[in-house]
């Protein structure tokens, strides 16, 4: 606590909880660098601050520093998972500070050096954190300009800045940021400063090479499992055969005889430690262990009935008009039930952590999306104050929501304490499947009707166990209701799911979009109207019309009633303020049930685009990853035993499934930058289902659309 007390005393008005960057640490970090310690009121765009909880620092110095050489360091608690924040966030800072982009360095995901951050998820790095970082840059620039104006004794309006050089436009006199501050500590604040208007952008819209690319193509990029420390031991942890199994008997005598092996135990945490991971694994196999296993109740086939029977009380998400009235006016009613299975995150890097403890000072390198939460968890597990724990998220080998939970870091910390040595925990692929927080299996029931003019007259949407995000209808239907029961994460009653579920790239929205856009397509078929035209008929949302028409133009969509036999499909979605329309062209082999997605066109309006190529990388990645849950990915289980153990049974997308991908970015400078890391993935289930329907005339109601389900649906037809 000492650090924080010092800091809060020195820097009056600062919330103690925001003082994650202490003065002493800052000194260590900056060397002779500039301190800009002026405390300001909260930036207006910050999320509501919760009392007693950490929040985003209102001091812009937490996010940036300017060195005596003029180089700028951007400090953010976000993590580089592959999504490109390391490349795009410095663009925002360079834009607001008016410094050259290549003069900005970035430090990410280090709880000692970087200001508190809630975690890297939800496509929030640009949409929600971007305004924080831009605000910090804008205010720093304004302070620096004011200082130059005073030094030159000229009005601030006469000054302009380029590449960190401030010039008086009348006299041509110049002062650089670096010489202005000369390592001095400056305490000044001028309150909130407006960020640049879109018309003044000079850095937005550039597509620089990824900052992590050189490290990653040379093998120099370090992930948590690449941290090798003197005296470090690798841990292989004893795992139950299924969730809920209780340890009955364990005998480690033979395993202990393996040379160099240490076995440590703390309650149910039993681990084999060795300086080589493969020897630890072999020794672990020598442990004799018995568990009492719970009786299997559900499996991957019966789960949907189980969910419907045990789902919590439904809540109305939105309602307008009258369903009763709508039903009366309907001449055609379509009712369907849509299912999707549990799916795994299956990042290529398994959960990994390396921990060293020196004099009660803990350093954790963890593959995590939430380093600041891990800091709290590790402190709690070890009985230490949080300031004794430093968490560093180095490069993270994919997250997708699966590394929001970081149990491996706590395991490594507990084992390092027990062993008195640095410990590395790298889950094997089986552990990765076992402890994954899966995307929940879910059920959506939709009942909807057409009036005698072929327009949608009512829409009754009920989602069970996926959550209500973006469940609300965006087509204009006069009588509609959306109801949600349960959620995508921990908000469900105990026992609803047989194992952990959690955020999976675009939580809720893959499920809700698959059902909604499949059902819309069926209604279009019943109405005998081309599915694009059918959608546009009841769509007044201008942004959605624009993306749909842009996708149709790029795709060269030719209107036809479905099924046309061509194998083309469309799906639309809104995801946290980003609009997306996707079209696909598929070939279905009726004999094998195999589907090849040949081409995908995706148009996206994410408001202002920071980094166009970075956005396209995310769109392409979303499309490719989405083909997995659409066509192949499904977690099989028996009771609480996870049957997926490796990539031989859990089939993720491969090169042979790569379609031609075309992305269209809609230029929309009137809307603030929103997220781009998730939106296209939500359309992939429906766009493929709709294209399959167009090809062969049958409607797949369950994800993934594996060959046996396709063949079964063809036989039923």
């Amino acid at each position, binding site marked *: 606590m000492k650090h924080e007390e010092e800091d809060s005393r020195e820097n009056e008005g600062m919330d103690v909880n925001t003082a994650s960057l202490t003065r002493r640490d800052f000194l260590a970090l900056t060397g002779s660098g500039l301190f800009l310690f002026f405390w300001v009121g909260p930036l207006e765009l910050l999320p509501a601050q919760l009392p007693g909880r950490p929040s985003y620092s209102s001091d812009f110095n937490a996010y940036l520093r300017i060195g005596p050489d003029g180089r700028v360091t951007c400090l953010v608690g976000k993590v580089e998972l592959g999504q490109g924040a390391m490349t795009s966030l410095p663009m925002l800072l360079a834009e607001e500070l008016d410094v050259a982009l290549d003069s900005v360095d970035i430090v990410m995901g280090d709880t000692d050096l970087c200001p508190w951050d809630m975690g890297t998820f939800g496509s929030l790095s640009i949409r929600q954190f971007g305004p924080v970082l831009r605000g910090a840059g804008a205010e720093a620039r304004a302070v620096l300009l004011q200082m130059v104006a005073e030094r030159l004794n000229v009005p601030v309006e006469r000054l302009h800045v380029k590449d960190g050089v401030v010039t008086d436009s009348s006299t041509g006199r110049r002062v650089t940021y670096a010489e202005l501050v000369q390592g001095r500590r400056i305490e000044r604040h001028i309150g909130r400063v407006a960020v640049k208007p879109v018309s003044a952008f000079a850095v937005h819209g550039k597509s620089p090479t990824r900052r992590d690319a050189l490290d990653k193509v040379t093998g120099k990029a370090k992930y948590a*499992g690449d941290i090798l420390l003197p005296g470090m031991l690798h841990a292989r942890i004893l795992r139950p055969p299924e969730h809920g199994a209780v340890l009955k008997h364990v005998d480690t005598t033979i395993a202990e005889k393996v040379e160099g092996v240490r076995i440590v135990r703390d309650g149910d945490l039993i681990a084999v430690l060795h300086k080589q*991971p493969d020897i630890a694994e072999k020794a672990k196999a020598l442990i004799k262990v018995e568990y009492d296993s719970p009786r299997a109740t559900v499996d991957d086939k019966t789960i949907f009935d189980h969910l419907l029977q045990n789902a919590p009380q439904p809540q109305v998400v939105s309602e307008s008009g009258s369903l009763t009235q709508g039903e009366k006016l309907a001449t055609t009613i379509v009712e369907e039930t849509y299912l999707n299975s549990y799916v795994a995150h299956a990042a290529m890097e398994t959960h990994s952590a390396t921990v060293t403890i020196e004099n009660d000072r803990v350093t954790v390198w963890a593959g995590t999306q939430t380093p600041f939460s891990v800091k709290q968890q590790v402190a709690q597990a070890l009985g230490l104050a949080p300031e004794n724990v430093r968490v560093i998220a180095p490069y993270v080998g994919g997250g997708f929501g699966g590394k929001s939970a970081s149990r491996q870091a706590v395991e490594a910390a507990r084992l390092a304490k027990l062993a008195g040595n640095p410990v590395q925990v790298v889950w094997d692929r089986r552990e990765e499947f076992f402890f994954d927080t899966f995307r929940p299996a879910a059920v959506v029931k939709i009942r909807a009707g057409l009036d005698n003019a072929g327009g949608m007259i009512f829409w009754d949407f009920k989602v069970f166990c996926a959550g209500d995000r973006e469940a609300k209808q965006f087509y204009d239907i006069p009588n509609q209701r959306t109801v949600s029961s349960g959620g995508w994460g921990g908000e469900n009653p105990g026992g609803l799911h047989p194992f952990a579920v959690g955020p999976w790239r675009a939580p809720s929205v893959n499920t809700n979009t698959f059902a909604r856009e499949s059902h819309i397509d069926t209604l279009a078929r019943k109405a005998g109207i081309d599915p694009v035209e059918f959608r546009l008929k009841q769509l007044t949302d201008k942004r959605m019309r624009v993306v749909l028409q842009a996708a149709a133009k790029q795709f060269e969509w030719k209107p036809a009633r479905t099924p046309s036999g061509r194998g083309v499909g469309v799906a639309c979605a809104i995801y946290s303020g980003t609009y997306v329309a996707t079209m696909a062209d598929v070939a279905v082999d009726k004999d094998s049930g195999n589907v090849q997605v040949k081409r995908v066109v995706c148009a996206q309006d994410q408001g202002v685009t920071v980094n166009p190529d970075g956005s396209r990388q995310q769109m*392409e990645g979303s499309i490719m990853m989405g083909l997995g849950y659409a066509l192949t990915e499904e977690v099989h289980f028996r009771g609480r035993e996870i049957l997926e153990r490796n990539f031989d049974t859990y089939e993720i997308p491969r090169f042979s499934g790569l379609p031609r991908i075309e992305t269209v970015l809609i230029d929309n400078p009137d809307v603030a930058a929103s997220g781009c890391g998730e939106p296209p993935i939500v359309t992939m289930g429906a766009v493929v289902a709709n294209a399959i329907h167009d090809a062969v005339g049958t409607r797949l109601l369950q994800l993934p659309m594996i060959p046996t389900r396709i063949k079964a649906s063809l036989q039923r037809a």
Partner: protein
Amino acid sequence: MQRTISFTLNGKPTHAAVDDERMLLWFLRYDLGLTGTKYGCGEGLCGACTVVVNNEAVRSCATPMKDVAGKSVLTIEGLEQGGKLHPIQQAFLKHNALQCGYCTPGMILSAYALLQKTPRPTAAEIVKHMDENLCRCGSHLRIVEAIREAADSKERA
């Protein structure tokens, strides 16, 4: 069996006193600290641990040390020559053909082995050769483009 295995690693003669059944992945990562070779699945199913042995892409997690005796092993750390990136590395960089980067060393070394054998592969040959290398971020499109470009640049060179 504990014995000394001699082989060439990234162009340098190497003698390793090891259990000859030990998997090459562990030796590279934890005896030599060559952490560019990644653990992904441990069963030769994902390709993250791919290295090149005598111009063939192999899975180091499923290759015992005895299998590399007398052979030439190339890891991602050995691909740069004289501080200059290999054309495949250059092409991955230029196309931003990676996201999380965890599969990237394996992708690049698989592509290297392909281009050794087939200097001008068709798109279909690239897809076929790379199909056992998994990428979860979905950089496939750019990886194929990067390999095509590297093949072109090698042709010119």
